């Protein structure tokens, strides 16, 4: 160990040290290749080779209307979830920076408590809350408003998914807002800006890095959601993941299911690649203050 900590010098000794360090990471890399790399490669190959070589599965995917409807819906639901998360997380994270330490602890606990209960159980909770004879409808009926249909609708899926993903929005937003110097707002106001104008010209731009970071994470995670739409949604809120599962497990169409999976995977990586430089840039700008 002592030999490794010295700064690496060029030459054979340095090179052997580098190899020793790489050897430490090797077991994890081998497992990664075996359980993630190789399986994903298999899926890509199968999407191109079943039933015979060619891009027939991809042309099938993009020429079947129902697939395109589901693809569009997957993006639309993810976008809605992101919008709901930003709209709810922004005031929440802001208040977290403005309250005393005791209230803040309670607010942090509210964000972390969802992680305490198993993900599947949480989806069951949403069934209990949203179903026709559920908590929300009981309250509405008691209040004399009447009932609304929530389960097996797109609204229900968005409500359930946004609750799961909200912590991923609140936490990065809070960490950026915590660093914003509130004296800048006071300076703007002392120069004659009204509070609303001061907010839009000073505070909002400074908090945008947090919004970007959170929104990208939420949107990407939402694209791949499977359990929540499967249990809370109906046939009119099917997302791409369910379609993939259906092709593979029910229809045994590995080629078609694989092609859908590759489309989903590419969309995810493309978004990540597009967002990465912007996020890094914004992060630096945010950190400067």
């Amino acid at each position, binding site marked *: *160990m*002592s030999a*490794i*900590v010295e700064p*690496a010098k060029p030459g054979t000794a340095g090179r052997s040290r580098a190899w*020793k*360090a*790489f050897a*430490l*990471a*090797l*077991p*994890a*890399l081998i*497992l*990664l290749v075996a359980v*993630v790399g*190789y*399986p*994903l490669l*298999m*899926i890509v190959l199968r999407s191109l080779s079943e039933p015979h070589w060619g891009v027939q599965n991809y042309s099938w995917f993009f020429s079947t209307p129902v697939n395109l409807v589901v693809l569009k819906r997957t993006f639309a639901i993810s976008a809605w979830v992101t919008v709901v998360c930003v709209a*709810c*997380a922004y*005031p929440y994270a*802001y*208040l977290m920076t403005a309250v005393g330490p005791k209230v803040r602890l309670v607010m942090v606990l*509210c964000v972390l*408590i*969802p992680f305490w*209960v*198993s*993900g599947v*159980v*949480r989806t*069951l*909770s949403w*069934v*209990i*809350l949203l*179903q026709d*004879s*559920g908590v929300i409808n*009981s309250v509405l009926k008691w209040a004399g408003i009447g009932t609304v249909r929530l389960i097996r609708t797109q609204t229900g899926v968005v409500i359930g998914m946004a*609750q799961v993903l*909200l912590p991923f929005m609140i936490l990065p937003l809070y960490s950026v807002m915590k660093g914003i110097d509130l004296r800048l*707002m006071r300076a703007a106001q002392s120069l004659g800006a009204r*509070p609303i104008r001061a907010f839009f010209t000073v505070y909002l731009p400074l908090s945008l890095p947090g919004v970007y970071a959170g929104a990208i994470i939420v949107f*990407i*995670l939402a694209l*791949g959601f*499977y359990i929540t739409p499967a*249990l809370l949604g109906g046939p009119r809120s099917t997302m791409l*993941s369910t379609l993939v*599962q259906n092709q593979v497990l029910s229809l045994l169409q*590995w080629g078609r*299911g694989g092609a859908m*999976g590759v489309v*989903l995977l590419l969309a*995810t990586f493309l978004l990540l690649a597009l967002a990465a430089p912007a996020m890094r840039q914004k992060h630096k700008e945010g950190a400067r203050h």
Partner: protein
Amino acid sequence: MEMKPLTRAVLGLICLLVGIWLVAPTIVVAPMSFNGVKSLAFPPRGFSWQWYENFVTSPDWSSSFFNSLKIACLVAILATVLGTLAAFGLDRMRARPANLIRMLLLTPMVVPGVVLAIGIYAVYLDARLVGTLTGFVLAHTILALPFVLIAVSANLEVFDKRLETAAASLGAGALTTFRTVTLPLIAPGMLSGLLFAFATSFDEIIVSLFITNPYLRTLPVQIFASITRDADPTVAAVGTILLCVTTVLIGGGMLLLGRERRGRS
């Protein structure tokens, strides 16, 4: 920034609603678990312990619980060992290759669950790993590894390497240095990685749904099957038990951590 009372009241109300929205799903299972009838309709009718009894006595539920426990323990150990080794290796490599490898090791966090699941399922069908302990442990370990890597790397970043040099210069061998200096200093990161790895495996559902078979079911798979089959309040009982266990564990951990911190300062 001073807010007007009205702004403050509106903001407080919005946040209260968001808070309720966040917490409501966690607590709503508890009243359902004491339901007197086999239904998940609200409000529950009557009172009984029968769903807790069912969880303990039904072989389906108890075996899936012990399967999950066994798998999660193995995953926690394996992921912590592999993740810590990798974190050490990457810490001692040049920045460019280290960042590339780190990014690769973190990809399981962003690959859509179902895509990874069908891939693993395809490979496991060929390798006859469907429904086996080995299959579950390997798949869950790679999903849990990023959490260990992040936790231990964060610990290594603030770790003063001169301490190792000091120990070595005082005559300690590589192994002694590791055991007496390095290990105690990165233990907090390893411990939080271990807990995250355990939780990831215990909670994993999507890959598990594909690689399960009637002989080996984990608890989340059993819960999912139960939800899709009928309205069985046993699920609510399981959820309540899990919530209580996590609350006790996290509460205990926070108390321990607080005491240790106070003891050190």
